[in-house]
């Protein structure tokens, strides 16, 4: 079976050939082939022997993909061929131009007004989550077209808090 896996920002193609009747598989990654023996210890715990190296892996499967823990590192691994279109679209929509909180937050202060000219990197909105304040900044130089929030409003990722009309860079 062939997979195209998304891990961090990479896509890794893998081909797995199970050995019939045994908990053993060959996994081909590029030029290399890895022999993997495995035991499912529990629903979330896999005990692997990868080319002779013992690996304890923990897996939690969600709609997002599989969350995997190996030796102090965590990964979100997705099957690129099976990513629902809504997910891949939202990833594509997360252009740096969107002024949206990275997590559910409360608006503390709004630092600009509609009609203001802002520089790239200038603070626009201060939001707070888990007792921590975070300033959302202008991704580029431009004109504040619209402010879609107010102080003390609860906001979530995807909400566009401030709309900015991008100004063409003036320097050659």
């Amino acid at each position, binding site marked *: 079976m062939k997979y195209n896996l998304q891990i961090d920002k990479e896509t890794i193609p893998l081909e797995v050939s199970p050995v019939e009747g045994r908990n053993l598989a060959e996994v081909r990654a590029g030029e290399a082939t890895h022999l993997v023996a495995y035991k499912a210890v529990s629903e979330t715990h896999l005990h692997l022997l990868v080319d002779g190296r013992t690996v304890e892996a923990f897996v939690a499967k969600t709609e997002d993909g599989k*969350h*995997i823990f*190996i030796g102090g*590192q965590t*990964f979100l691994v997705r099957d690129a061929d099976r990513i629902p279109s809504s997910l891949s679209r939202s990833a594509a929509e997360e252009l740096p131009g969107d002024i949206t909180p990275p997590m559910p937050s409360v608006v503390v202060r709004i630092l600009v007004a509609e009609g203001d000219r802002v520089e790239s990197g200038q603070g626009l909105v201060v939001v*707070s989550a888990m*007792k921590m304040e975070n300033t959302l900044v202008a991704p580029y130089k431009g004109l504040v077209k619209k402010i879609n929030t107010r102080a003390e409003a609860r906001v979530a990722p995807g909400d566009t808090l401030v709309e900015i009309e991008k100004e063409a860079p003036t320097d050659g």
Partner: protein
Amino acid sequence: MFKKILIANRSEIAVRIIRTCREMGIETVAVYSDADECALHVLEADEAVSLGPSEPSSSYLNINLIIQAAKSTGAEAIHPGYGFLAENPDFASAVEDAGLVFIGPPSRVIRDLGDKTKAREIMQSAGVDVIPGMLAGTEDIGTLCKEADGMGYPVLLKAVAGGGGKGMRIVEDPRGMKEVCASAMSEAEKAFGNGALYLEKFLKNTRHIEFQVLADQQGHVVHLFERECSIQRRHQKIVEETPSPGLSREIRRSMGKAALSAARASGYVNAGTVEFLLEPSGKFYFMEVNTRLQVEHPITEMTTGLDLVRHQIEIAAGNPLPFGQADITRRGHAIECRIYAEDPSEHFFPSPGPVLLYKEPEGPGIRVDGGIYEGFEVPVEYDPILGKLIVWAEDRKMAVSRMLRALRGYAILGVQTTIPFLVNVMESTPFEEGETYTHFIETHFADWSPENRESLLAGITYVIDDLARPLRASGTSEMADPPTPWETLGEWRL
């Protein structure tokens, strides 16, 4: 001794206090907000009282509701933990006025020491050196700018009512000073209900060293040695250890003496922490007194063998300390790593959400003070601490190896945590060499991103999990008899 204690806190620290109470045969009452209905401290306590809405001001900061809860359940004393109301003198005095015992210092002491400028005054008159700076706070930005110009940049902006790094900012030069003051003031106002700020000269290349003190109602004061807490992000500690790798025998002795003077000068009772900044020259300055149990108290417990919560309760009940300074010894080395629900590759941005998988590390010398469990939803309303991982070993080198083993076996999925970052800190040369200063993270780990990612193994795990899933369902998952070449590759038994 008290028969029942209410714990006015949540999560890991509430759980930690409940554990000692249980060992002492004291019943416990937990309080909780709507977001914490199923939190671990609620599950572990003997009784639990709802405080209502999740917003901290309506629940964990609601003095009247908490005192009512103690009265209605028949609790005789209140332990405030750390954070929330722990250093709020109005809370302590309200508890005293209600005829209950506050497990901590008298409200007067909390008031004096909580006013950071007043505390500086007390220490100066007791002969303890304080960091050069203002002796009075202000909400006037103009005054702060003028003082900063006079003192010379860089300066450290601090909240008069400060704690936990809230309202604290380093300002390198006059540009932007006004905006920084405004933002720090708003943060302080929100965190403490008091926006007043003051300035200290910002000292470079310093270590954060603190001394744990215990003082009983009979006037005995002892210290339990130091903790070094130099590794901080956002002025909040993330790794602590004891002994400090940067303290000579003489400095340790004179700092211990200064800590005792500081405790005596303020009329201290119960457990407290005297914080100092240590310059490379060996000169040290008083910073502040934390009038409560510290997050990092377990490393002192591991090396001295003393249960600080037990002694807090004994002192609050009026019992004298059962030991003097000469009886207190310590052994080995302890390190604590704070496990936060934060993304260390995104400047430690909070990462709330459901805990999909949770497995604590085990084995010799490992202690986990945890506050969550698998299936728990980490709320967005509170501090992102999930728990604390503490190790003890014979010496520092062994303690570092033990911490690495423990971190690599601490599986948490669903929320991002500080674990991968802490692994890299423990592996780093500056940490190994004890080169730990308060700018450690900015110097060595600015814009950190995970190193040596085992992406291929994660990919292999993904595809093998697909293969193993149907087998697990039918209950026939057995490891393959390895084929011949395998047998030569190492020990492999089931």
